[in-house]
Each structure stands twice: as C-alpha cells, then as structure tokens.
C-alpha cells in the first residue's frame, strides 16, 4: 500500500489503493477484521464440536452413515444467500444467523474428513491396542484420534478457509465482518474500501491456513520422521478428494 504524501488526495480521486484511507478509517478496518475473525472462529469451533460426534455415530452404526452424510451434503448445496435468508425468521437479524449458516456449511467437509481419517486407521493398530487392554474411549483418544489427525486437520483447513471467504456474505444481515465494508464500498462506489477489505479477507484465509498447518506439525511430530512429505501430501490429497 502506498502511504504518506503519495496517498494525499487519493480519497478524492477514488483510487483503488489509498494510504489515506488506511489512516483515516483504520479503526473501521480493525473492527471489521475483529468481527470477521470472531464469526469465523466461533463457526468453525461449533462446526467441529458438532461434526465430531456425527462422524463417530456414522462410523459406529452403518445405517446412520448414509443419512448423516446425505443430510450434510444437501445442506452444502443450499446457496449461502438462501441459507442466511432462511435462518433470519428463526434468529431475527443477528450474528447467530451467520454463525449457524456457516456451521451448517462446515459440517459437510468436517464430517467427511473426520470419518475418512478414522476409517483409515489400520485394523492391526486397533487390534494391537485392544490386545493391550485399551477400552473404546482410550482407544479413540490415544490411538485413533492422533492417527486421524492429518485428515482431520486437512478438513479443518478447507472448512476454515471457505468459512473466512463465506463470512463476507453475512453482510446481507449486517454481520459480515469485512464483507460489510465490501458492501458499503459497493454502494458508495468507494474503490479503496472494497479492495482493502477484499485483500484483508484473502490474507486472513491464508494466515488461518498457515496457522492450522503449523498446529498440525506440532501435534503430529511423528509424521515428520517417517516418509518425509510424501505420505502427508498423499493423505491430504485423499482427504480433499473425499470432500469432492
């Protein structure tokens, strides 16, 4: 972004890139970013909390797998504008509309990836743990979950990145974070506002993705020692395909 003296008058000229805009409306940008991050984080966390038991249910009872996967996929095909619109009568115009919509979208990706990760745990490993006297809960937490973590995080990354992007549409009900700035910039034909908010949005998505990648590396130190890179990349690609 050009700053300082070069920025003077760019607001009047309505330039795409404008340092003056950043200076004079900095607080507005910070507020929007905070709202954006808050909505995204809450949505993904709630999505994870709901998706995990759903994936466990789908794995435990084969009869439940079809309906669970089918329902979450159907939810995914409902366009976001329609989803938010359908939820307004339930919650009124509030942030809850946006969060609920985003949670429903994240479920498709999360449930599929968690399920794929759990199903990919080798049967020998499970048998060995059972032979060592592990109960079902301990087996899940100490053996299956760590092994499913790469697929789980792959899903979490996809869900987070698309949630960051989709939060902008929350601007229809006034809770879109940076999307609010994009919408108001569009109404006022204010180019700098639109471009700055859009770029910030993409930056948030990239940063969130990198952050999750880092968290995964910290949580799964063993993947770095065995089959460097290759195995992890393959697993990621497989999980991404499961989302299709």
């Amino acid at each position: 972004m050009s700053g300082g003296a070069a920025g003077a008058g760019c607001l009047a000229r309505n330039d795409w890139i404008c340092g003056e805009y950043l200076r004079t409306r900095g607080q507005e940008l910070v507020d929007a970013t905070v709202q954006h991050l808050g909505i995204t984080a809450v949505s993904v966390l709630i999505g994870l909390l709901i998706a995990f038991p759903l994936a466990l249910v789908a794995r435990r009872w084969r009869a439940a797998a079809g309906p669970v996967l089918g329902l979450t996929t159907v939810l995914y095909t409902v366009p976001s504008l329609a989803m938010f619109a359908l939820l307004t009568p339930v919650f009124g115009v509030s942030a809850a509309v946006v969060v609920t919509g985003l949670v429903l979208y994240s479920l498709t990706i999360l449930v599929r990836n968690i399920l794929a990760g759990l199903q990919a745990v080798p049967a020998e490993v499970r048998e060995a743990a059972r032979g060592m006297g592990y109960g079902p809960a301990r087996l899940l937490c100490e053996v299956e979950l760590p092994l499913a973590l790469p697929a789980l995080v792959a899903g979490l990354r996809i869900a987070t990145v698309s949630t960051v992007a989709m939060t902008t549409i929350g601007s229809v009900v006034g809770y879109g974070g940076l999307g609010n700035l994009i919408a108001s910039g569009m109404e006022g034909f204010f180019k700098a506002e639109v471009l700055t908010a859009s770029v910030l949005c993409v930056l948030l998505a990239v940063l969130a993705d990198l952050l999750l990648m880092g968290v995964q590396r910290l949580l799964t130190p063993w993947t770095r020692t065995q089959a460097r890179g290759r195995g992890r990349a393959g697993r990621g690609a497989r999980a991404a395909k499961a989302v299709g």
Partner: protein
Amino acid sequence: MGAITGAWQWLTTAANWAGEKGVWHRLAEHLWLSGLCLVLSCLIALPVALWLGHLGKGGALAVNLSNVGRAVPTFAVLVLLTLSPLGTRGDWPAIVALVLFAVPPLLTNAYLGMREADRDVVEAARGMGMSGPQLLLRVEIPLAYPLIMTGLRSATVQVVATATLAALAGGGGLGRIITAGFGNYDTAQVVAGAVLVAVLALTVEGVLVLAERFLDPMRGRRRAVRTARA
C-alpha cells in the same frame, strides 16, 4: 411460523410470478447466467485439464488452483469487477466472476481423474498400438469419467449458488428476490426467495446425479463387473 405461512402466501400469489421482477423472469435470468458460465468454464477448463492429464504435467498447478479458489471470497470478486471498467458492461462482471469460480473444481477433478486412470490399462492400450488421441478418447476419458462428472457437479452447484450472489452486486437472477425482500424488510419474500433458490440448487444436483448415471460411457460394463463380483 408466521414467516413460513407468509412465504407460502407469497409463493402462491400469481402476481409475484409474472412480470419483470417476477419469479419466472428471475428464474430465466438465473438459468441463462448459470448455463452460459458453465459452458464457458467447461470450454476453458476441460481441454486444459485433459491435455495436462494426458501429458502428466502441471499437477501442482491443477491441484493448488482449487485451494486458492476457495480462499477468495466470491462476493469480493463480484464487487471488485463491478467497480472496475468491466462494471459498465451489463452481466459481464457476474459472468467473469462465476467462470473464475467454476474453473478450479472442473480442472482439478478432471486432472485427477486422468491421472488416476489405471496406469496398467493405459500402458496396455498403448502397447496395443493406440495413438495419443485414441488413447485419450477411448481409454483415459472413459476411465476418468466419474471424477470429471464429480467436478462438473460441484462446479454446477457452485455456479447456481453463486449466481444468487450476483444480485448483491446488482445483477439479475433469483437472488434479487431475496435482496429485494431484505431491502423492504419483507421476511415472507426473503424466505420465499430462499426456498426457491434452495429448491433450484437441489433440483440441479438431482438432475446431474441422474445424468451422470445415464451418460456413463462404461454403464453396461460397470454393472457387469459388479454382478460378476456379487
């Protein structure tokens, strides 16, 4: 519950279906826009993906394109294009934005489908003396068909859903009914519009699932294999 009865009333009022702002007109706009963008995206993405897949090159590009596409908010791109010089040219901002979003899933899936075609079968066909184009048309594309169709399906659903957003940036389509409802604080109309869009998205998905089964070049053979196994 008031909203649902209200939406039902809105949907069953004939006046809401007729005219420039009526459902039929908006639906036609929506389908025209989605259809056009889908055809354009296929014309761009499929030849590139099939060619790259045939050569076995450009895998990183094909896969990463899809991930990058997810991170960019459609709404932002639509608004940016609307404010750019392109914005004065009617539907073009919406068309360009939709094509940009439909290309990645098409390209990635078609490429992966081509790469995952059973290498032994491809080698065998080559050994039988098939030329490059023959190999592509008679072996690789039929084997890649399921994934190509998966890509087409997600691209189509995405385009139909995203065409709704065109309304936020002043374009036409069914989304207009929702945004107009928001504008007038008319919850009944908002819900009615949302129901229409959701039903359209689900219908398109269903039609594509059927088309996928019906058009499968290996339809007879896949069934034969399944019964042979059973």
